[in-house]
């Protein structure tokens, strides 16, 4: 298969992949931290409602918080122990959020208490969606969007293709790679559950060409009765973004302001699919996840199955970290977020921890020059926007114009424009700030009354 024959999307960039150091290391179990911090909001939506009280003894796998309405999921105890405190805890968003502080019992065998199983043989689609919400599943690729919301499909939007996203285009991260190699049966089981819910004709497991072993392994393991195939994609960032995958695999474009569902495709991360296949038959909740711990500053790089709520400080102590460590990212270096404090816990949406030393970070710590309109960013933007023009407007604070004329809200902050900019302009950050301003203004306009909000796009 020639390189050019592989499917891909338009534009995009080629950051150094840096995956070799961890892609060969099998998933290992991470120890329990002396205190686990469990934010009640680890998903997009409303915070979960705690069901335990301070001082209560809980068992690993027990439900700690129930969903508050549809846009919310359950939270389960990652360890057998005692609830020390229910109060504010730091989060990667830079806000204090309500959370549960759980102290694991050191001597416990950490047996998992199981809930109500949802066996594939008898489960209806509605039961599967409910079980997924009960299991507390969110998109494990990083967005942490509740999976059951994604699977609650309106009747007028049929799904013809289920895309299992194993592209993992983010540098340094190898969790999906290892999950595909080590949890193939779970992935297959997850696809069966998902096909039952979305009634798609076929499933495609999309894998970038830098993971040939995973592609081969999954291909060999797909049973004949499953309408699923493996598609190898060209290595390019951001290949793993939903809209890029749909464009590469199906040649369809998601309309501005619409969801992938509107094109008849449903994208689910391969790690999420594997967890569906692992948790639902047993009636378990998600209380641990696989993450990659890597980057130049980490001594024992690798892939770990880690209890949710492990604080960053404990994690770095365990794996060993260079004393020059300067930046720690949750998620990958392209779309991940820089950790503002080492007290921040690993949450369901954290796909990796990448740490850089002072030396390595210096490369990104450069002087910012004015835009020379070279157009590199225009060539890089996978959404076919004009980041150069947007950046100039951002400097002039013309936020409404950015949104109305230059489709600011279509930007999904992949960072390709900032990555290629020879003037080192922090474009994505400007866009993120502008988006926050625009959203705030529109919310206020909407709150002010229907007459005032007529300028909002349909």
């Amino acid at each position: 298969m020639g390189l050019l024959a592989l499917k891909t999307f338009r534009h995009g960039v080629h950051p150094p992949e840096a995956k070799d150091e961890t892609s060969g290391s099998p998933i290992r179990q991470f120890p329990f931290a002396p205190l686990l911090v469990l934010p009640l909001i680890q998903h997009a939506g409303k915070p979960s409602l705690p069901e335990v009280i301070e001082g209560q003894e809980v068992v690993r796998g027990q439900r700690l918080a129930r969903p508050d309405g549809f846009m919310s999921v359950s939270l389960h105890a990652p360890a057998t122990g005692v609830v020390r405190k229910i109060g504010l805890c730091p989060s990667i968003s830079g806000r204090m959020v309500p959370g549960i502080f759980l102290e694991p019992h050191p001597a416990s065998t950490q047996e998992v208490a199981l809930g109500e199983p949802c066996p594939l043989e008898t489960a209806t689609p509605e039961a599967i969606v409910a079980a997924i919400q009960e299991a507390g599943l969110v998109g494990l690729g990083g967005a942490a969007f509740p999976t059951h919301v994604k699977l609650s499909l309106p009747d007028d939007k049929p799904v013809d293709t289920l895309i299992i996203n194993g592209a993992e285009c983010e540098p340094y991260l190898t969790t999906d790679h290892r999950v595909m190699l080590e949890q193939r049966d779970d992935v297959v089981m997850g696809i069966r559950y998902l096909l039952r819910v979305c009634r798609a004709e076929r499933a495609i497991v999309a894998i970038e060409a830098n993971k040939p072993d995973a592609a081969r392994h999954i291909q060999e393991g797909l049973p004949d009765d499953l309408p699923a195939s493996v598609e190898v994609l060209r290595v390019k960032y951001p290949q793993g973004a939903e809209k890029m995958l749909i464009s590469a695999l199906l040649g369809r474009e998601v309309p501005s302001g619409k969801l992938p569902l509107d094109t008849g495709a449903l994208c689910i991360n391969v790690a999420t699919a594997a967890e569906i296949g692992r948790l639902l038959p047993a009636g378990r909740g998600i209380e641990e996840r696989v993450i990659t711990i890597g980057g130049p500053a980490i001594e024992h790089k690798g892939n770990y199955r880690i209890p949710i709520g492990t604080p960053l400080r404990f994690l770095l102590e365990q794996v060993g970290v260079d004393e020059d460590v300067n930046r720690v990212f949750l998620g990958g270096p392209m779309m991940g977020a820089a950790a503002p404090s080492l007290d921040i816990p690993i949450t369901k949406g954290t796909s990796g921890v990448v740490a850089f030393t002072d030396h390595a970070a210096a490369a990104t710590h450069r002087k910012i020059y004015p835009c020379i309109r070279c157009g590199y960013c225009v060539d890089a933007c996978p959404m076919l926007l004009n980041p150069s023009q947007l950046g100039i407007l951002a400097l002039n604070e013309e936020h409404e114009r950015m949104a109305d004329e230059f489709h600011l809200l279509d930007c999904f902050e992949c960072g390709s424009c900032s990555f290629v900019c020879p003037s080192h302009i922090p474009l994505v950050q400007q866009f993120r700030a502008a988006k926050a301003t625009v959203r705030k203004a529109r919310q206020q306009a909407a709150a002010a009354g229907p007459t005032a909000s007529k300028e909002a796009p349909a």
Partner: protein
Amino acid sequence: MITAVAALSGLTMALATLLVLAHRMLHVEEDPRVGLVEDMLPHTNCGACGYPGCRAFAEALVGGEALPGKCTVSSEAGRERIAGFLGVDVGAEAKRVARLACAGGTNVARRRARYDGPATCRAAAQVAGGGKSCFFGCLGFGDCAEACDFDAIRMNEHELPVVSEAACTACGDCVEVCPKDLFSLHPVSHRLFVACKSLEAGDGILEDCEVGCTACGRCAQDAPGLVQIQSNLAVVDYDRDHRTDLPIQRCPTGAIIWMEPEGPRKGREAAKIIRKGTLPPAAT
């Protein structure tokens, strides 16, 4: 030659007639006082009166919907002039000012991380909330000072905004621009003020900021009802009589203060902080 002159003159006359007709027939009757009142207003279009600019406010004034007192930018004499012109009351509107609910300058509040992106609060707030140790505190890049059309906000030597009571018109631009929602508009009479928004409990906050509210509750004890501890923060109930500085006296950190026109005054038991330089970042 003559044809050309005649043709052009004819065309000119025809178009002039059209213009005259349009002027007569499409004329909109407008109260001439609106323009005069608008000229008496300060032309800042700040929106502090609640109307979308001075013109709209002038229309409201002439229409009797509002009183001149709503314009906080005009001088006292200016408001009286408009009131006299329209034959209405000035309408005593209590002067309001913007107040910042944070006192954590760089000399008293720690940083937990170094932020080196674009130097605006709104951009910094996007990166994990900025570099301040306190998740609630002022980031100090001065978006509010930039947004203020009246130069009422200046950044002091500790990167903390200082609002000039005299210059502030309570237009609310700073309230809108602050990503941490630290500004609020208060009548000047609200002298008793809690300059902290941290909801963190207990003395742990002092490691981040020496002037934070630890929710010790002494202010609430000294002025029962007037000050209450809600979600680990002292809250003043301005519906009660708040013209007493009793609650600030025993505050150990100086989080609850008495706002004098020339600056905040702390209680006598508040820790004296004489540090001029920057606090070192917290050890990680």
